[in-house]
């Protein structure tokens, strides 16, 4: 077990706190720079609903007071930061008066579930295939087929999602086109509901898996090439250990560790990709919430969703950085 040096921990913590603060600040500043007045958007929505609005000046002033945008900027800023840190992003303007945090809490489990599931699958498949590419005993087919399949790595999941959606949902109708569960099933811990969720989640997960496993496979290939020539592998071969045993216990075990840090660098892109997949499948997660908010110009929701996703990313990176010395005791942290 490695121990985390205090300097390293402080360094990582500072980065984490700075990331969160800077993200919150950017998210807060951007709308202030914009000429668009949120109070006028809200008034416009009222006018669109009612046909006309009397006393519009007074309503505008009241709306501004409600949104807190009549206060000095510095007060607004601290209110926003403290609000963001306590997950209080105000009320949604489109689904008034639902708090933004409630909307996010409803969407978050779907996003996290889909993300963790597809991540575990890709990590497993990708690393195994990457290792097999280098292993000199793997069948010929593997060495030819995987590089060909690797071409898909470069494609963002939204494109694979569209293609899979068309083939398996629109044409073959094996899977539902949109949604996270069937509208005919009552949500709850029943078998019917779980089945429906799995049925609906299959295509979104598959579209992420198809295009991300290659990233891990490529990384693993590079790492395996490094491990292949190591003395301990040669010794294991000389000892006459089973080749399969050497592959799993000696080569993959050692090569896989840096892959976990690669995850930290990749997670931002993964989440952004998934947001888009959720949008095209109208999957009940953060992606759909964000898209609906963009359509409705629901600013508190856009800010809230963006902040929460950035927070998840930053926390994951932080955790990976901290857990790494425990997984690989050879690593010594330097504060360089």
């Amino acid at each position, binding site marked *: 077990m490695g121990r985390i040096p205090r300097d390293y921990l402080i360094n990582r913590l500072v*980065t984490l706190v700075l990331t969160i603060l*800077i993200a919150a600040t950017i998210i807060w500043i951007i709308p202030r720079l914009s000429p668009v007045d949120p109070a006028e958007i809200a008034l416009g929505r009222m006018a669109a609903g009612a046909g006309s609005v009397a006393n519009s000046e007074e309503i505008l002033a009241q709306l501004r007071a409600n949104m807190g945008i009549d206060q000095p900027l510095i007060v607004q800023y601290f209110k926003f930061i403290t609000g963001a840190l306590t997950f209080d992003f105000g009320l949604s303007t489109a689904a008034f008066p639902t708090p933004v945090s409630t909307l996010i809490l409803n969407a978050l489990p779907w996003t996290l579930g889909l993300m963790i599931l597809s991540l575990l699958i890709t990590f497993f498949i990708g690393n195994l295939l990457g290792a097999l590419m280098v292993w000199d005993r793997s069948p010929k087919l593997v060495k030819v087929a995987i590089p060909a399949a690797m071409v898909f790595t470069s494609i*963002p999941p939204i494109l694979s999602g569209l293609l899979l959606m068309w083939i398996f949902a629109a044409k073959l109708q094996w899977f539902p086109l949109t949604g996270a569960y069937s509208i005919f099933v009552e949500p709850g811990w029943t078998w019917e509901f779980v089945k429906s969720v799995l049925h609906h989640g299959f295509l979104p997960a598959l579209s992420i898996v198809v295009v991300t496993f290659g990233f891990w496979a490529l990384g693993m290939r590079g790492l395996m090439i490094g491990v292949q020539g190591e003395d301990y592998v040669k010794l294991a071969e000389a000892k006459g250990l089973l080749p399969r045993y050497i592959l799993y216990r000696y080569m993959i075990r050692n090569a896989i560790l840096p892959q976990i840090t690669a995850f930290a660098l990749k997670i*931002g*892109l993964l989440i*952004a990709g998934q947001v888009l997949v959720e949008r095209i499948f109208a999957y009940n997660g953060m992606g759909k919430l964000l898209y609906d908010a963009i359509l409705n110009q629901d600013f508190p929701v856009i800010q809230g969703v963006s902040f929460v996703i950035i927070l998840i990313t930053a926390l994951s990176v932080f955790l990976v950085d901290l857990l790494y010395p425990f997984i690989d005791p050879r690593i010594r942290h330097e504060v360089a």
Partner: protein
Amino acid sequence: MTSQDNMPMTRAEKRQARRIRRFDNPWMNPKLTWGVAILLGIVAIGIIGRFVWNLDLVFTGSAPLKLPPLGAENLRGQPGVMEYPLGTDGAGRDMLALIIVGAPNTLFVGLLASLIGMSIGIFLGFSAGFIGGRVDDVIRVGADVMITIPPLLILVVFQSAFGDVTLTMMALLIAGFVWQSPTRLIRAQVLSMKQSGYVQMAQLSGASTTHIMFREMLPNLVPYLFGSFIASVTTSIVTAVGLEVLGLGPQRIPTLGRTIYEAINAGALIQNLWWWWGIPTLLLGVMFIGLLLINLGLDEVSNPRLRKLS
């Protein structure tokens, strides 16, 4: 490995050996060549298309609605016609014209954003590596912080606050998020190169800092710089397409992502208008594959150990 040395060469190995003899230059590897060819092909569509095709067909209502490509038939039983060889979309725009205008636009955003991002990265990376101290601390922490923030989400906030943007504006915005990895990469390389013999030799012989930076170090960084550049082109295009698919990005300029957005919103998947979303999707896919091939090819240039394995 050693046991295979005495064995006669397989056909693949012979072919590999012949290829190595013929193209001793690592820059001429087939992946790189193919990747560059694919991208040049897309650029060529954009350039040649401008001369041979009527670009007014990108305007809404300039063509019949929902015509299929040549050789296909739509739900109403209409066959494709020569005037609109790739079909038309639900708003009466010619798909071929959309691609001729849209594909270079998409590529342009990616290239411009990465060029700016790379320049910032080279500048900051060299500054951090060379000056060190406080400057290094600030740049390093800055890059560490910004690398965790997914560009898509900040840009979503930005564009929903500001509304319509131009292509250049979008590229500039994306550039603000693709300088981090080049900065880190170059900083790390500069730090390790500073210790190497030839740089110390140059320092001993009294070469100026700029000479060391640009004449001694930069040429050795070229494969990494290209690799990093291509990676950020991919990131930029993915981000741009992501924004466009969410309905943001330039509203009146045809781009591949915007076309997909309109197709999804019009229910093209259910109506079996596969050419509407399929052609831009395919083209984007080809573009990304081209970029990937270039990146793999560049990997072989900078990491000779990969060459014999491919």
